[in-house]
């Protein structure tokens, strides 16, 4: 990137501290998306071990049936639930649903698109991700 463009760069893009929960959701959506893609590729490789027969399958299964494996899976559950719920919110927003209606703005100009519906959506996706993670941990460590 040319120096004279004076772009904020990746540091500015991922900085979640300045513009409220919406920017945090933006960052988490990206990170969870990348994390889930990495998990998906690994999962496809992991399940291909079934072609090695029972011995191959069990060998690989042993790797995942550990405390570390369970915690890793719990993180995947959190990413999956957050990405799904927040993704549905974002998708509705992209269609113009729940972003408010155009109107003459009055000072101090609170933007209608940054409304409580979307904030509730973001907080719900975080809470649901936490709940699903705890349920997942209970299932994995309970057995």
């Amino acid at each position, binding site marked *: 990137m040319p120096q004279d463009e004076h772009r904020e760069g990746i540091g500015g893009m991922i900085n979640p501290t300045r513009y409220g929960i919406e920017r945090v959701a933006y960052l988490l959506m990206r990170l969870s998306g990348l994390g889930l893609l990495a998990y998906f590729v690994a999962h496809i490789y992991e399940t*291909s071990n079934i072609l090695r027969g029972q011995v191959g399958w069990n060998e690989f299964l042993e790797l995942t049936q550990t405390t570390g494996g369970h915690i890793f899976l719990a993180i995947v559950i959190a990413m999956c639930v957050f990405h799904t719920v927040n993704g549905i919110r974002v998708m509705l927003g992209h269609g113009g649903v729940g972003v408010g209606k155009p109107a003459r703005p009055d000072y101090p100009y609170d933007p209608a698109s940054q409304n409580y519906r979307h904030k509730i959506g973001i907080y719900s996706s975080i809470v649901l991700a936490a709940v699903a993670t705890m349920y997942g941990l209970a299932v994995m460590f309970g057995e």
Partner: protein
Amino acid sequence: MRESTIMKIHYGTALAAVALVAVHILMRLTQGFAESLEYESVLANYKFIPYAIMLELILILLAVHGFNGLRVILIELKQGRIYEKAVSYGCLAAMIGLIAYGSRTIIMTNMGLV
């Protein structure tokens, strides 16, 4: 392909994948998590044709959605005609490769070639 068409596919694959992945996870939970991962149980899943078809659909949907998401992130990070073409074709190739690799597992296991 127009960007709007690509993004409509992105949204469509997301919604369809949510529904199918939910079924996939529920299958693990209804059978008991640890038991459902045992070799015989997984083999039986693969050999059950409707389930194998569902796995294939999930594979396609998530590969399309995931690699398009990666393409979007990468073309926003850096610009340039050659770089963007490389990203687009690279993601397409990775998507096709992953679908082919996953399909091989599903088809061979389903046909009992294990």
